[in-house]
């Protein structure tokens, strides 16, 4: 059964009064749930948040489905998101994604056997001048090459 930590519950309580309406707190609170649930939002974690906030479950469901930053499937400890939009594609972002998957032995979108990595292709992340780039959890890595990216990913603790 999923439950937020005590600090997590405190966070939700605060968010619920931070904005003009309680509903605005759904997105920030779902981020918190995702963080504490190992990087994804499960159906039961959605139901839990709805109950905790005392809002209709479909409010939370709607947000979880619409926004791409909410992972509806489990992800590895490091969620590696490689931009493959135009400027990054021109700088080899797509080939870099393939190389990362090969080197780490993981299929795109899947979780690696050791549960360390999930690699996905994403749209422009606002780093087009420092292409190619990837985002690993919250952090940006820019001006990459395939080798550099693989090295960075292998060395994450």
């Amino acid at each position: 059964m999923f439950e937020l930590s005590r600090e997590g519950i405190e966070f939700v309580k605060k968010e619920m009064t931070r904005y003009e309406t309680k509903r605005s707190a759904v997105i920030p609170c779902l981020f918190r749930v995702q963080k504490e649930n190992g990087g994804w939002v499960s159906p039961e974690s959605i139901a839990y948040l709805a109950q905790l906030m005392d809002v209709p479950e479909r409010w939370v469901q709607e947000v979880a489905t619409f926004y791409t930053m909410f992972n509806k499937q489990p992800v590895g400890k490091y969620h590696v998101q490689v931009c493959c939009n135009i400027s990054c594609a021109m700088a080899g972002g797509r080939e870099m994604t393939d190389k990362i998957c090969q080197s780490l032995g993981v299929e795109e979108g899947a979780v690696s056997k050791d549960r360390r990595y999930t690699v996905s292709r994403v749209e422009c992340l606002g780093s087009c001048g420092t292409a190619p780039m990837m985002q690993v959890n919250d952090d940006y890595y820019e001006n990459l090459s395939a080798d550099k990216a693989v090295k960075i990913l292998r060395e994450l603790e």
Partner: protein
Amino acid sequence: METKLLSQHYDKPEYVSLKGYLNLGGYEVLKRALKMEPKAIIDEVKASGLRGRGGAGFPTGTKWTFLPENGEPRYLLCNADEGEPGTFKDRIMLERAPHQLIEGMIISAFAVKSAKSYIYVRGEYQMCIRKLEKAIREAYDAGFLGKNILGSGFTHDMDVYSGAGAYICGEETGMISSLEGKKGQPKLKPPFPAVQGYLAKPTIVNNVETLAAVSLILRDGAAAYRKFGTEKSPGTKLFSVSGNVKKPGVYEVPLGYPLADLIQVECGGLDPGRRLKAVIPGGSSAPVLTAEEAMKATMDYECLQGMGTMLGSGAVIVIDDSNCMVDLLKVIMHFYHHESCGQCTPCREGTGWLHKIVHSIVSGEGRLQDVDLIPRVSRQMMGRTICALSDAAAMPAISFVEKFRDEFEFFVREGRSKVKGHLHA
């Protein structure tokens, strides 16, 4: 040459903190502005001719006068969703000068008599969000935010809201829905947000760069601001330049600046041995220019409009002769198909079709009639949807086929790229 009005201090790390910002003259404009009549501020912004930097280029002062005369509450929203492919200038501003934005926002809020503002930041910019939250706390502590700001009687609260990954939340009504905690689907206009926006209350939505420029205009005066740029496009603008140039980055130049100089002087030109093939001048929603057109273009709203494209968010994507235009159109169409919110049939179906057609060409399975199908499908998508995303997908598609038809036909005939040979789809 670069003309650094907004970005003058971006190379100074201390500019991020309140202390550093104050030492470099920060919040002086706010002090003066709070002694003015709100109406006088709006008039100054109107006189400056400032046009919105988020993409549409709508005159900012005019937008502000669309608010009803009275009626509380009213909201100010800063659009920091920055999702237009190729654009990274707001991020630089948020990372290096959060107080510059905050000061511009307080002044703007005072002008439009708003007691509450939000900065809606795309969810991926977590670092910017943390910096903004810190800067807002500092501004509260210094008495620039909160009750009775600097003894003026004006009260204003500001907060940050994180998006969660959806390009469509950059569209102002989509952004408002998102801020309300819902899915970020755009709404039909009218009513415009200035009349019925956040929580159905009057709301002004402006881009990061627009709001930061407001304090610049009040600092120097509208006439001084107008010394830069052209009659119809006054001032300077931040351009995000990416793609095949030696020195990609954000450059501030006066509007009306020659695109050729931006590429060759500011960005150091192309790699040795490469030839310019095309330039997308305003983010991936802007129709592409051929090299020949690009060399004649100036970076202002009117010139680019005259060339059938647009300044958009000021994202310049430079494309050299090593690229396959069919392949790049596939990347662009994948994006719009992925980001269509699905409410309007022409957009939902059209972006799907376009992506499918270009994809099949790249897979070597295209037919000659597919090349004409691209502009035909695109034209069905224009001017008949709730928001401009549908047009934003259709317009570049038409331009790619019209201007680089030979590459599309070659691909269909030979089953491989004219430039790159076989591509993996």
